[in-house]
């Protein structure tokens, strides 16, 4: 037997295991407990791979400052979100097809046919937003409390690297659904590199793998989108490693000095993180189950079309401030440099801030400039969602200038001229005060930043008439489709729309599925049999037509786009499968915020009803191109489709009024179901998840109170209070 197994240092590594230089009350050095293998087998293993010891010192006995507030839980929340994104992403890849002709439809296949596919996809797409939201709060927290200052510079820079990787990953992930926004985001962002002198165009061609964004671009973005999260995970490991070497900062900015200034990571920090992860999950679930498309763009439900740029393209909300900076600079190269500089400058923050005081608590001037900076970022985000014209451009330029002034001038100067408040010498001396108001203010800004999102599509100019809202049975958290309305709506589609509009993503069987029109199996078979479906080849090698079966998709009215355009005076009747999600209109402030809370997600259906009823004589002074009709609600007003509905054109058998108004509402409801066939399941499961998360968060809260009670009791005893009287 080797002597080393009895060595008393076994199971610990030579690396510096503990941050701070903690002392006991008697002044002797304090070291937190280390892992002691409870039996010979584990000791044998531990001597060969000290993984239990590592987990124990890193995740259990690791000392954290006892005065951390809830802003410090966002590191745990980010870890949680990274895991969620990787798990849901790995699962989605099992069904997604990274091929230009199939990507869009494979995402819809996930939404419609894969078991819980809609849930997994909405978790992933909204998870990206939640990831960035938590990331921004984490970064602002670091800025407020000076967490980037010595000795945490490397820790901070690793965070900036993670943030850059997140941006790259998020961008490439957004390209994968291969909708219009995907395609044009890919085009615009890759074109940033064309600003590089001399080699710019060659680099862009290399990035594309072609002469424009296309199939090769999609495939390589898919590959990298799968790879980068694991790179993020690796840098996160370094980030946490660095954190464990230098120790966590805390709201005072003064390092813990005694054992009593710290608590063990588990259970104290673990349960606190757990409670806030529970709360964060409630917010996340609200988006996933009730407003899953709120943070997305309606245009991304239109398949990528290299021939048409959407009228108003904006990036995802989390890139908006940088997009505003890019657009505020009139020179192409300088704009791109400003964009990248605005991110890279974060890495220099530890040296730009010259103050020796960390926490903004003791820096009265910096505190004001910090909030000014937060407001600047939020406003830049709002401007990034606005068209680059008029006053918006001027505001963007002023705020861009301030963004850089903050880093380059304000921070270095503040350290020289600011008179900080007295900094406590130790954590025990620092009274716990303040913070609450800052927490609330920041929460308000965070919410504003979150919902100050890109709005919405459909080239609506200022002063346009908004489609009126309707009362939909499927709106709200408990909304359900009206079966009769869906069946009538199908009849309108069947008798009128399908002459020109395809419904390619739907199968006849969908008409009989739960949560839809719920036609009987016999009715579905009869409906399917009405259609002629192309099949073959038969034994003679010929294609042939046969009556449709429930498993078949709705056959298109025209064999190809050219035939459709030729038959419709040059206009292409869009496919109606996801049309209700692909059409929206600008709601404007504050309505879009209210919509998020009600929640109201039926803008597409409202738009359709308005459009179907919106035909009017061409106003004087406006000339219509030949074959075009004037429509009040159509963007640009010239629509190729003649008024499709008139009173009595469709016969209802259930006694519903046979009017254009009723037809329009019924077919809009039907198309809403066609676009989101899992809406009822989503809201039902959403309610269950909400109840569960509220209960879980409550339990976590009380458990947290219990666990921390031990820590807080001695102090209360010292003040002469009875611990029993404290709130539990």
């Amino acid at each position: 037997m080797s002597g080393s197994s009895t060595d008393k240092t076994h199971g610990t590594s030579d690396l510096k295991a503990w941050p701070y230089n903690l002392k006991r009350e008697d002044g002797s050095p304090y070291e937190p407990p280390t892992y002691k293998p409870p039996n010979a087998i584990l000791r044998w293993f531990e001597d060969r791979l000290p993984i239990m010891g590592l987990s124990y010192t890193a995740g259990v006995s690791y000392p954290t400052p006892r005065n951390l507030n809830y802003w410090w839980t966002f590191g745990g929340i980010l870890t949680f979100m990274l895991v969620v994104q990787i798990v849901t992403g790995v699962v989605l890849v099992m069904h997604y097809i990274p091929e230009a002709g199939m990507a869009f439809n494979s995402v819809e296949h996930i939404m419609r046919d894969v078991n819980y596919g809609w849930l997994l996809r909405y978790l992933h797409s909204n998870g990206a937003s939640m990831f960035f939201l938590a990331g921004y709060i984490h970064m602002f927290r670091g800025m407020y409390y000076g967490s980037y200052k010595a000795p945490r510079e490397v820790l901070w820079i690793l965070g900036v690297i993670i943030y850059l990787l997140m941006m790259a990953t998020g961008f490439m992930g957004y390209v994968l659904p291969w909708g219009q926004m995907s395609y044009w985001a890919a085009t615009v962002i890759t074109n940033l590199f064309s600003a590089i002198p001399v080699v710019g165009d060659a680099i862009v061609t290399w990035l594309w793998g072609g002469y424009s964004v296309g199939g090769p671009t999609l495939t390589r973005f898919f590959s990298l989108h799968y790879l980068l999260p694991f790179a993020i995970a690796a840098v996160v490991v370094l980030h946490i490693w660095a954190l464990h070497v230098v120790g966590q900062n805390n709201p005072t900015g003064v390092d813990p000095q005694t054992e009593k200034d710290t608590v063990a990571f588990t259970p104290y920090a673990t349960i606190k993180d757990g409670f806030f992860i529970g709360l964060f999950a409630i917010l996340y679930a609200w988006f996933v189950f009730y407003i899953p498309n709120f943070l997305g763009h309606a245009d991304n439900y239109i398949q990528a079309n290299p021939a048409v740029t959407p009228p108003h393209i904006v990036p995802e909300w989390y890139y908006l401030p940088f997009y505003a900076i890019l657009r505020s600079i009139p020179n192409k190269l300088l704009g791109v440099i400003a964009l990248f500089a605005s991110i890279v400058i974060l890495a220099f923050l530890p040296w730009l801030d010259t103050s020796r005081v960390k926490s903004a608590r003791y820096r009265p001037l910096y505190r004001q400039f910090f909030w000014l900076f937060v407001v600047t970022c939020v406003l830049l985000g709002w401007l990034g969602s606005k068209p680059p014209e008029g006053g918006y451009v001027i505001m963007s330029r002023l705020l861009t200038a301030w963004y850089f002034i903050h880093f380059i001038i304000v921070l270095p100067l503040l350290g020289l001229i600011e008179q900080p408040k007295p900094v406590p010498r130790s954590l025990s001396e620092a009274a716990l005060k303040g913070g609450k108001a800052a927490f609330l203010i920041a929460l308000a800004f965070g919410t504003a930043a979150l919902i100050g999102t890109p709005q919405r599509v459909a080239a609506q100019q200022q002063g346009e008439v908004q489609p009126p809202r309707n009362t939909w049975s499927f709106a709200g958290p408990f909304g359900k489709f009206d079966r009769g309305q869906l069946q009538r709506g199908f009849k309108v589609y069947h008798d009128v729309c399908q002459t020109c509009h395809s419904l390619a993503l739907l199968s006849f069987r969908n008409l009989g599925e739960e949560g839809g029109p719920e036609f009987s199996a016999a009715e579905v078979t009869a409906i399917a049999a009405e259609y002629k479906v192309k099949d073959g080849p038969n034994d003679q090698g010929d294609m042939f037509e046969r009556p449709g079966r429930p498993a078949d998709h709705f056959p298109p009215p025209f064999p190809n786009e050219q035939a459709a355009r030729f038959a419709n005076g040059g206009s292409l009747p869009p496919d109606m499968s996801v049309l209700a999600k692909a059409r929206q209109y600008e709601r404007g402030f504050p309505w879009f915020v209210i919509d998020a809370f009600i929640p109201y997600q039926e803008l597409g259906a409202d738009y359709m009803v308005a459009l179907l009823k919106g035909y009017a004589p061409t106003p004087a002074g406006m000339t219509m191109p030949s074959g075009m009709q004037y429509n009040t609600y159509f963007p640009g007003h010239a629509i190729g489709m003649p008024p499709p509905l008139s009173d009595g054109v469709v016969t209802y058998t259930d006694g519903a009024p046979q009017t254009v108004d009723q037809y329009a509402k019924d077919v809009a409801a039907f198309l809403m179901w066609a676009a989101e066939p899992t809406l009822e399941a989503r809201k039902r499961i959403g309610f269950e998840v909400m109840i569960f998360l509220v209960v879980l968060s409550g339990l976590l809260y009380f458990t947290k109170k219990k666990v921390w009670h031990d820590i807080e009791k001695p102090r209360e005893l010292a003040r002469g209070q009875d611990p029993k009287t404290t709130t539990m």
Partner: protein
Amino acid sequence: MTTISAAEPTRRDFLFVATGAATAVGAAATLVPLIAQMNPDASTIAAGAPIEVDLTPIAEGQIIKVFWRSKPIYISHRSKKEIEEAQSVPLGDLPDPQPDQARVKPGHDQWLVVIGICTHLGCIPLAHQGDYDGWFCPCHGSQYDTSGRIRRGPAPANLPLPPYAFLSDGKIQIG
């Protein structure tokens, strides 16, 4: 103080157990969609609907292969000799004893419909080969007779029968 220490642990334990249990329930519920997503999706299930096969073009002694749920289905139009061979084998000679009558529909002795997947490890046996006029699996040498029953080799069971029914004398529906 003693009363506190006696009362506290129970309440605390209950809270901890409840929180732990709720977390475990949540984790387990999270696994449901993650696991369910790998099961056949709705379009795959719908595509597995029953198929109809016209038997009239199949000559006596001929075996055709059709696909149902992505599985090869052998339809054998058996000759008198093949039927006799299948019916005359003593059940005791069979590794997986099953009379021929149990493998065809009554009154349709000439039609044998089996799933053409070897019960050993899933290869597709070749028709009209082997020592028993039935099927021979090239992968590991399993041999099936004219009733699709295992006679020799590593396969443990007879070729399985798909669900099917005669719509008329010349037409069957599989599935």
